[in-house]
């Protein structure tokens, strides 16, 4: 890897919490509204970028996310190799998740200037496999390290 990609994968929730349909970070919504999150990627004019950073955080350990690269195979499919686990993700075929949406929450990340498009595992149970083998989860972009409030302050100390 010669260069760190500019853009990240993000784990977000598509919801209509009073401001139309758009993406929110789970951290900023009530616990009762925080179900149904998906991985998303920022897109430009509807087209994906060539590479994204995707981070893994581990359960029961100091929060030190691992950085991996998700590569675009074509306009709908993406792949990564995380410690020998082949990660294959693709865009949704239909429904609200098949369309890019704006982030409409109250946090800041440079990627939130782009529309974001949901992606899903090609193989059923991929996220379970990752948790079993790595004791970690694909968080995309760790909000506690990379997101800020609008005034630039961090979400919390980690």
């Amino acid at each position, binding site marked *: 890897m010669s260069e760190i990609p500019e853009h990240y994968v993000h*784990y977000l929730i*598509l919801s209509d*919490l009073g401001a139309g349909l758009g993406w929110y*970070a*789970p*951290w900023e919504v*009530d*616990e*009762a*509204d*925080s*179900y*149904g*999150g*998906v991985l998303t990627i920022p897109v430009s004019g509807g087209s994906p970028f060539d590479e994204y950073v995707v981070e893994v*955080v581990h*359960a*029961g350990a100091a*929060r030190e996310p691992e950085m991996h690269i998700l590569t675009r195979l074509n306009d709908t499919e993406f792949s990564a190799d995380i410690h020998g686990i082949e990660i294959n993700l693709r865009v949704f075929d239909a*429904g*609200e*998740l098949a369309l890019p949406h704006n982030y409409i929450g109250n946090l800041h990340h440079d990627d939130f200037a782009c529309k974001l498009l949901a992606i899903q595992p090609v193989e*059923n*149970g*991929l*996220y*379970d*496999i*990752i*948790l*079993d083998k790595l004791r*970690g*989860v*694909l*968080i995309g972009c760790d*909000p*506690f390290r990379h997101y800020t409030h609008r005034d630039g302050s961090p979400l*919390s100390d*980690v």
Partner: protein
Amino acid sequence: MKPIDIYHGTSLEFANDIVGPPPNPKVNIGGGEFGVGLYFQTSRGNAGMRVSSRYPDWRVVVATYCDNVTHGLKIKQFDHKQSDKLRASIPKDRRKSHRCNRDIVIGTIQRQPDVIQYKFESVSAEERLRNEAHLRLL
């Protein structure tokens, strides 16, 4: 019924409280798409992704869902279409107060028809979780 493991992601503090010893699950604190209750789901990876994006320190709690948990309880199970209908009927401001008047409510997660969620709603369901579900950390 063949026993299955179901999963609840939460902060490290709450996870330790739920698991104990003594185990201390609470159905009256949290809420979700089907209203007030303690929620578990069939995907541990899904549970982990959600909770790790909410809490810096997090764990996934495992419960065993089996006959000893469900025996004699009032359980309502919804398919994905019915789950969507139930979701739509509960205003977002009632997600921590709405009751389905069942001990356990089972349905899908919004936009995730392959993932089943289990809402433990009643005190009876809470007792079964505490005494029969072999609560533990993943």
